[in-house]
C-alpha cells in the first residue's frame, strides 16, 4: 500500500499543495498505530482466552495432566485416545447418546421451526404476538427450563397427570427421567421446546427475503399452497437451511446443561453425552489430560460439521 493510493493522504494534499511528504507518511503511521491500538484489547483477550486454551487443550490431550497432582505432568502419546475408544464404555455410550440426540433434534427442530415461521409469516392480525410467545422459551435460561421440566416429569408430576387425563386413566405414569428407555427422549422434548423459537426467527428472516413476485407468478401459473412451497419457498431457503441445520447440529453435539441439571448422565449412562463426560472426567475427577482429549474429540466433530457447511455453501456459487 503506497502513500499515493491512500485516500487520506490524497485528500490532505488536495487541501494544501505544500504538505510535505513527511506529513503524509506520519499520517499513515498514525493510522497504522491507531489500528493496532484499537484492535489490541480484543485480539489479546481472544488470544488469552480462546486461542491459547485451544492449543493448550490440544497439548494436554497427549498428557496425563491433573488439576492437583503430586507427580509432574508427562507426555503419554495417544494413551488418552486409546483409553477412550477401547477401555471406557461410558465414553462410547456418551458418543452414541450424543449422536442419537442430534439425529432426532436436528431434523425435528429444524422442521418444527420452519412450520412456526410459516405460520407467523401469514399476513394476519396477532401474528406478531404469536411470534413473541413462541420465542419466550428461548429467553428463559436452559437451567431454569431443565429444572422446571424435571419437576413436570416426576412420576406424580404434571406430564403424567396430563397423559392420565387425556387417556381417561389408561395411562399409568412412568418416571420419565429414571427410566433408561425414556430419559433421553424426555430430554429431547424439552430441548426442542426451549430452542425452536430461535430457529423460527432465522427461518422467518429467510422467508422475508423471498420476493413476493415469485409467489404471484406461481399463483398465476395455477400453483396451490403446496406447489408454491415446494417450487418457490424451499429452493429460495437454501442458504438459510444450511445455516439452521449447521447451528442446530453444533448445539446438539454440545448437549450439557440439561444432562447436568436433570440426570447427571444416568440412569445407567443412558443420558451421558460427550461434553458431559468430558466435564465429568476432566473437571469433577480432575483428570484434565483425559478430559481435554474428550473435548478434542468433540472439537473434531464440530470441525467436520463446519467443513460440511463450507462445502455446501461453496457449491451454490
Amino acid at each position, binding site marked *: 500500500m503506497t502513500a499515493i493510493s491512500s485516500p487520506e493522504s490524497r485528500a490532505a494534499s488536495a487541501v494544501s499543495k505544500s504538505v510535505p511528504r513527511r506529513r503524509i507518511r506520519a499520517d499513515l503511521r498514525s493510522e497504522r498505530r491507531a*489500528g493496532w491500538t484499537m484492535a489490541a484489547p480484543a485480539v489479546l483477550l481472544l488470544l488469552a482466552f480462546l486461542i491459547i486454551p485451544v492449543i493448550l487443550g490440544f497439548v494436554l490431550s497427549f498428557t496425563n495432566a491433573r488439576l492437583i497432582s503430586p507427580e509432574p505432568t508427562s507426555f503419554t502419546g495417544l494413551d488418552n485416545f486409546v483409553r477412550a475408544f477401547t477401555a471406557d464404555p461410558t465414553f462410547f455410550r456418551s458418543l452414541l447418546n450424543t449422536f442419537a440426540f442430534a439425529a432426532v433434534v436436528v431434523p425435528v427442530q429444524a422442521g418444527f421451526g420452519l412450520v412456526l415461521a410459516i405460520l407467523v409469516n401469514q399476513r394476519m392480525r396477532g401474528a406478531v404476538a404469536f411470534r413473541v410467545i413462541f420465542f419466550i422459551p428461548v*429467553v428463559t435460561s436452559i437451567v431454569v427450563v431443565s429444572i422446571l421440566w424435571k419437576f413436570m416429569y416426576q412420576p406424580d408430576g404434571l406430564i403424567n397427570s396430563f397423559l392420565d387425563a387425556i387417556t381417561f386413566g389408561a395411562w399409568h405414569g412412568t418416571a420419565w427421567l429414571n427410566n433408561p428407555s425414556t430419559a433421553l427422549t424426555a430430554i429431547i422434548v424439552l430441548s426442542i421446546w426451549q430452542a425452536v423459537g430461535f430457529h423460527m426467527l432465522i427461518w422467518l*428472516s429467510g422467508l422475508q427475503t423471498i420476493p413476493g413476485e415469485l409467489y404471484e407468478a406461481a399463483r398465476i401459473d395455477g400453483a396451490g399452497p403446496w406447489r408454491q412451497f415446494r417450487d418457490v419457498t424451499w429452493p429460495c431457503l437454501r442458504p438459510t437451511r444450511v445455516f439452521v441445520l449447521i447451528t442446530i447440529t453444533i448445539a446438539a453435539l454440545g448437549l450439557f446443561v440439561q444432562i447436568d441439571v436433570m440426570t447427571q448422565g444416568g440412569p445407567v449412562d443412558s443420558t451421558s453425552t460427550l461434553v458431559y463426560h468430558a466435564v465429568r472426567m476432566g473437571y469433577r475427577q480432575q483428570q484434565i489430560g483425559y478430559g481435554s482429549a474428550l473435548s478434542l474429540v468433540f472439537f473434531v466433530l464440530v470441525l467436520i460439521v*463446519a467443513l460440511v457447511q463450507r462445502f455446501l455453501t461453496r457449491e451454490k456459487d
Partner: protein
Amino acid sequence: MAEHALRRRRRLWIYLAMAGLAVFFLFPLVFMFVSSLKPDGQILSDVGGWRAFLPVGDISLRNYSGVFDRVPVGRFLLNSVFVTAVVVGAGLVVNSMAGFALSRLRWTGRGVVLSIIIATLIVPFETIAVPMVYWVSQLPTLVFQNGIVQYDFGWLDSYEVQIVPFIANGFSVFLFAQYFSTIPTAIDEAARIDGAGWFTIYRKIAVPLSGPAFATVAILTFLPAWNQYLWPSMVVQDENLRPVMVGMQYFFQDNTAWGEIMAYTSMITLPVLVVFLAFQRAFVSSVAASGVKG
C-alpha cells in the same frame, strides 16, 4: 365467493394451530409462576387438573421469603447483575473498537487478524472449558493482603474469572465491523482534514451512527452472560461470588422443596422476560442479524 369462504376457513385453522402452539410454549412457564405461589402440598394435589395453572387456593409469597431464608439470593442476583453488566459493557467497547480498526483502518496484519477472528467463531466454549480451568488456575494475579500487594497464581474463585474471558467475542467484532463498513469513509476523511485523531473519529462519528449495532451486540451477549452455568459451576466455589444459575444447586442438597424452587426460578426468569417483552422488536432483529453468518 366460495374462494372467500375457503380463505376464511383456512385462516381459522391457522389461528387454531397457533393458539394450540401458544399453549404448548406457555404452559410450563405459567405452571412455574403459579406454583411459586402455592404451598408444596397444594402444588401436588392441583397437578391433576386446571387448578395447576390457576393461582387459586392458599396463595401467598411464602415460598419467596423461604428462598431468601434458605440461600443468599440477593447476593447471587447482585453477582449476576454485576458480571453481566461488565461483560456486556466492556464487550461493547472492546469489540466495537476492534470492529472499527478492522473495517476502517489500514494496518499491517489486518487481514490475518480478521481471518483469525472469523476462525474463532467455530470454537464452541464447551470444547475449551476443561483446558480453560487448568489455564486460569495458572494465571498470575495480584492479591491485596494486610495492606501489601502480593503476587499469586490462580484466578479461581473471583469475579475476573467470570468476566474477563467473555469480554472479547469474535462474533461481536464481526457484527461491528460489518456495520461500520456501511458508513461512508468520506466522513472519516473530512474529520481527518479537520485534524481529528482516529480515536475521536471512532468515538464522535462511528459510535453515534451505530446505535442498532450496539443494541444487537448488547442483546446477543446479555443472554449468555446472565445464563452462565457450566463455567461458574467449575471455577467459583465461593458462595459470595456465585451467580444465580449456580446458586440453584443449594435447593437440591437436602429435601427438595419444589415451591421454593419454583419461586427461585420465577425470580431469576422474570427480569429477563420483562426486558424481552419491553424490547421485543430489538430482540427479534438481533436474532435475525445473527443469521447472517450463513
